[in-house]
């Protein structure tokens, strides 16, 4: 398969699936099948990309064959491919989970097309090597996710979705302003070229000032302190499938963007920008976990924890050493799988007990011991309990922090870990153990086929978490490659700019001859 096709497959597959799902709008079953196939296809393509870049290094392709930097490029390095794979895994899991979880009304009104379009936005963001194109994918993500949040149209959903969309539009606005200013300074949008051009701007300080816009814009997307309000306001309102998908992926696209631009573009004054990021990371951890500890709704606890966990990832970026970035990447991988899984568990709990409130859920363990077991694995992993995946992520970050001498952030990270343990076990104690109320015994519902289907992706993701825990070595190596490429951005830059040369060497573009009749058509 040509590299070009392989690179655009993660966009083409969901695009085709979205259109197909629209065509079969009245056949929910067909749509479900299409969706699972689509997510599976993306996963296969992403794995294909991984093996490709393992053999041949960073992959680059130009869209429409316009030479770098005049057209749009797609660039896949280890970070991109890791993000693509993990997203696709969540896509597959949620696609299966959604089969019983998402009601037919939602399916008729386009749940699956929107789902695939959201996937396009996410994959596009991971693939693109063009700053404005990244903005476009953010827009696609924003509108698709907004529709997915409001689909169903309850007051609660609308209230959450309005905050979601308004704050995220501010993010878009700042992003776009930033893109404009960067273009004004350098005359290019290609990120590889920007990486060089931004270092040559006559006013390096000004680049850092403009970087603040990107910090805030992506900080909103990533739900950093004090920009995270939209997340706890909205994530607990849509069906579990949707919130699991969002919880796993959306903020992580923001985190990805931060990792990308604050390693590739804005490293003019790391002492300033990354110190700022480190403060943001610490405050995000603390405020998120304190928020989580006082919640009494399953998904609200989890939502605040997303915020808190984002802090750890940004801590990796902010410390800005190869090991720290590695820890950040490891954290992202671990977190996406674990967090999405916890939301999936909450959905099953809701289905069994009719509520997300911890008090109404009490005693789940007695009647659903398997669900309890499947909760324990991601929950304790999230809390960094050894030897689960979260432990490794936190261990790497802690070592990196100590090596850098950033003791305060290590202290914060460790203390927040204890609080995470507190709120995860709070869910355990309040929702899974009996609470001594009378409402428990008669609220037991039996398990239908649908619920059993929902167990499948949960068990799958839990198994994956255990795999990452036991075989932490290979995941570490993958994260190490990603971090090396991020830290030494020259590899990325050369891959893109050399692609230009090879295209130029090829002589006249074949596309001109290959597209006859266009002039006549006008």
């Amino acid at each position, binding site marked *: 398969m040509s590299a070009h096709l392989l690179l655009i497959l993660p966009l083409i597959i969901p695009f085709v699936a979205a259109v197909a799902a629209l065509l079969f709008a009245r056949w929910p079953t067909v749509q479900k099948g299409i969706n699972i196939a689509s997510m599976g296809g993306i996963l296969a393509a992403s794995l294909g990309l991984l093996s490709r870049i393992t053999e041949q290094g960073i992959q680059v392709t130009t869209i429409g064959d316009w030479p770098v930097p005049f057209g749009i490029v797609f660039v896949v390095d280890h970070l991109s491919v890791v993000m693509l794979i993990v997203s696709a895994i969540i896509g597959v899991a949620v696609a299966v989970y959604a089969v019983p979880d998402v009601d037919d009304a939602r399916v008729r009104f386009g749940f699956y097309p929107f789902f695939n379009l959201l996937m396009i936005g996410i994959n596009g963001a991971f693939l693109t090597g063009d700053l404005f194109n990244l903005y476009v*994918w953010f827009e696609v993500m924003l509108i698709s996710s907004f529709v997915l949040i409001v689909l169903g149209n309850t007051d609660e959903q609308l209230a959450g979705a309005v905050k979601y969309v308004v704050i995220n539009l501010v993010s878009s606005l700042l992003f776009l302003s930033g893109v404009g200013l960067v273009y*004004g300074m350098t*005359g290019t949008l290609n990120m590889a070229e920007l990486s060089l051009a931004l270092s040559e701007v006559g006013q390096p300080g000004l680049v850092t*000032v403009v970087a603040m816009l990107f910090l805030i814009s992506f900080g909103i997307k990533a739900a950093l302190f004090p920009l995270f309000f939209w997340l706890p306001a909205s994530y607990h309102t849509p069906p579990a499938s949707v919130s699991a998908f969002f919880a796993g992926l959306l903020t992580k696209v923001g985190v990805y963007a931060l990792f990308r631009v604050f390693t590739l573009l804005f490293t003019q004054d790391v002492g300033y920008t990354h110190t700022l990021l480190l403060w943001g990371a610490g405050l995000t951890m603390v405020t998120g976990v304190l928020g989580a500890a006082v919640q009494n709704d399953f998904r609200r606890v989890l939502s605040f924890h997303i915020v808190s966990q984002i802090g750890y990832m940004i801590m990796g970026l902010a410390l800005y050493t190869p090991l720290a970035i590695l820890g950040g990447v490891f954290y992202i991988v671990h977190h996406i799988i674990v967090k999405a899984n916890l939301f999936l568990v909450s959905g099953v709990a809701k289905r069994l007990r009719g509520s997300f409130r911890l008090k109404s859920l009490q005693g789940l363990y007695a009647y659903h011991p398997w669900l309890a077991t499947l909760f324990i694995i991601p929950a304790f992993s999230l809390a960094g309990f*050894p030897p689960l995946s979260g432990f490794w992520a936190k261990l790497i970050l802690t*070592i990196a922090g100590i090596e850098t001498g950033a003791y305060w952030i290590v202290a914060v990270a*460790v203390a927040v870990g204890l609080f995470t343990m507190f709120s995860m076990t709070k869910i355990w104690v309040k929702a899974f153990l009996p609470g001594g109320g009378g409402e428990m015994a008669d609220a037991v519902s039996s398990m239908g086929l649908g619920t059993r289907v929902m167990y499948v992706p949960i068990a799958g993701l839990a198994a994956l978490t255990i795999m990452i825990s036991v075989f932490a070595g290979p995941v570490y190596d993958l994260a190490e490659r990603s971090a090396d490429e991020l830290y030494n951005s020259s590899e990325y830059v050369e891959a893109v700019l050399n692609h230009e040369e090879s295209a130029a060497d090829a002589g006249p573009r074949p596309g001109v001859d290959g597209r006859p009749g266009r002039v006549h058509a006008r």
Partner: protein
Amino acid sequence: MAILFAVFSGFVLALASPWLTQYTGRATGWVYGLLPAAITGTLATLVGEVAAGETLRVSYAWVPGLNVNLSFYVDGLSLFFALLITGIGTLIYVYAGGYLKGHHHLGRFFSYLSMFMAAMVGLVLADNLITFYVFFELTSFASFVLIGFNHDEAPSRRAAWQALLVTKAGGLALLVGFILMQQATGTFQISAILESGDLIRQHSFYLPIVLLVLAGAFTKSAQFPFYFWLPNAMEAPTPVSAYLHSATMVKAGIYVMARFHPVLSGTDLWMWVVGGIGALTMLLSAWLALQYTDMKAILAYTTIMALGLLTMLLGLGTEVAVEACMVFILVHAFYKAALFMVAGAIDHEVHVRDITKLGGLWTRMPVTGAAAALAALSMAGIPPFFGFVGKELIYEAATHFDPATVAVTVVSVLANVALVASAGLLVVRPFFGELNDVTKHAHRPDAGLWFGPVVLAVFSVGLGLAPGLLDAAFLGPSAGTVLGASIAPHLALWHGFTLELGLSAVTVAAGVGTYLAWTALRTNTAFQQLERWLGTGLDHGYDNVVDGLLGVGRWQTSVLQSGVLRRYLSTVLGTTIVLVGAAFYHYGFFGGPISVADVRPHEWVLAILSVVGAFGTLFFRSRIGLITSLGVSGFGIALLFLAFGAPDLAKTQFLIETLTVILVVLILTTVSSVEGTLTASQKATNGAVAVGMGVVVSGLILAVLKLPFENPMGDYYAQNTYVEGEGHNIVNTILVDFRALDTLGEITVLLVAGFGIYALLRTGTAPDPNAEHEPPPEDASAPIEQAEQTQQVP
């Protein structure tokens, strides 16, 4: 192979247990007991080699990038502990089988118990700090599920949660301490670190390492001020308590101190902190043990006392002290496991554990009673029991320690006095005297319930009579490892008429006196007040800390996550203003003075028009007025685009402005005016944010405009639109060819928006099948939730 079997077979049994119990039925305890027995046997075959000074190890790469290996090794100390864990474990398994006979969740219980044992074995055999930490935390997890095994009861849930959080807090400190150790020595391998004592002691990390490692050890081993979790943990089924107090969990902390003794001890810091906290814990808990009437509570506080004593001995760190420590670990394990099992047997047969209500059980459970009596005599340190050997050694360590000889001796004697009295309370009260209404219906316990105590009693007697058996095989290698030296100890029952013997006599006499005065001591109000501070007081302190932190969490969440969109927006925009402003402040402002000379008159007019439109929004109260005013601003900008030669852009802007005004006016004709909900200060905030944003954005643009601008992109598009793109309009060609993917994305956005609006309109009135219909939440987060929900679309 022996090592892997010892560590991992328990985990295998843990996985298989729920399924396997169906077949083992009532014999489960005896059958499962074969596993720890087999591990004990396997490990016992290594005793000779280890005593000869060999160490056995296995190692597998786990995360090579971090130099983390899954590795184990057997030396004198680890073998000593591993044998203790599996040996006592065998008896606990048998006992648990009898104690929980026919229990609904027997399989689950043995699953947890096996995990507990295996985790402990893995912990003591670990040769890598991270491997060590993994098993250390697994013991916390196992004890969490075991203490909370009877999770139908609230105290059980609370105790389990508390134990987990307290030991996890210490565990995290321990982990950081371990990482610092690795930073200081360059390795995670324990056996290598043990040889770098001088390196660590002279390293600048020495102080944090000691404090962090001790935080881990002290929380795990229930030292002051963390000991409150251990008495609560007696909510666990008694087999768990017996195991947890004698050979596992709390001994993990002692093991940490013993394991790293060669590299961390030998400084004043170590001696005073470890010795001091140990002595304090010992003294307080010796007192507290006499304040309770529940057999398990008395046992729990005597465990804390024993842990304090062991800690103190490790703090003293002399050869005799370390030998005494090792011997007392055995002494304590034997009598503590036996007495806990006895307490459980009584509880099982009588359903009462209060020693003031029990009596005369001797006639009903003679075998149990005999075993209890022997164990208690060892506890009290009466010759010729093993406890006497231990106590003599402790007194020898105390009287030969310098400095603070007198203090150490007095503290040791006082603690042993409490032990004598407690031993009396635990045996004389329940077993002697007359049968009463409570005890007369007691049944004779199963063999499973007395087998363990009897075996342990035999050990207490046997090792008392022939303590020399331990010298070369166990005591030498284990104490030698702790001291980091080769030693040849000689244990003996009889040392002649020494100072230690005299102290023993005093101890016994005082102990008997205390026993006789027990009721008076316990009911004295002053003493009860002391108990309230030190016992339940610390427990309440834990609650206060948790509640306090939750209070902070509630407060900050209500401030941050207020549910008010306006506040969210001001915060986000305010952050933008501050960060951009601060960066400008830091780097200096790069823009120059604006030259107004170049501005043409019509540009002035358009600019002013836009500004007036923007400010107009401040003064309109009706929605139509607002939207018209905004429209004026928008048209002004569109005209500016036109004036600067961007007709396409202007065209788009005109369309959007027109449509927006038309649509909004159409929708809003039904709504009269904006309710005047904003206070003056809110308006001021909004105004400040708006002006601030305007200033920073203008600043950014002015600064960027100062830079020279080359336009290779524009040139390329101009040259290639016709040649390569075969288009006649650059803008169109950029949109549909050069950057067609962007356009595809934006079209997608429009498509999604269209479909989304359609879906929203169609489902508008349908009730949500997933909607929750619940009473309003009455819990703590209620204000937040309601705020979040009632904040509606404007």
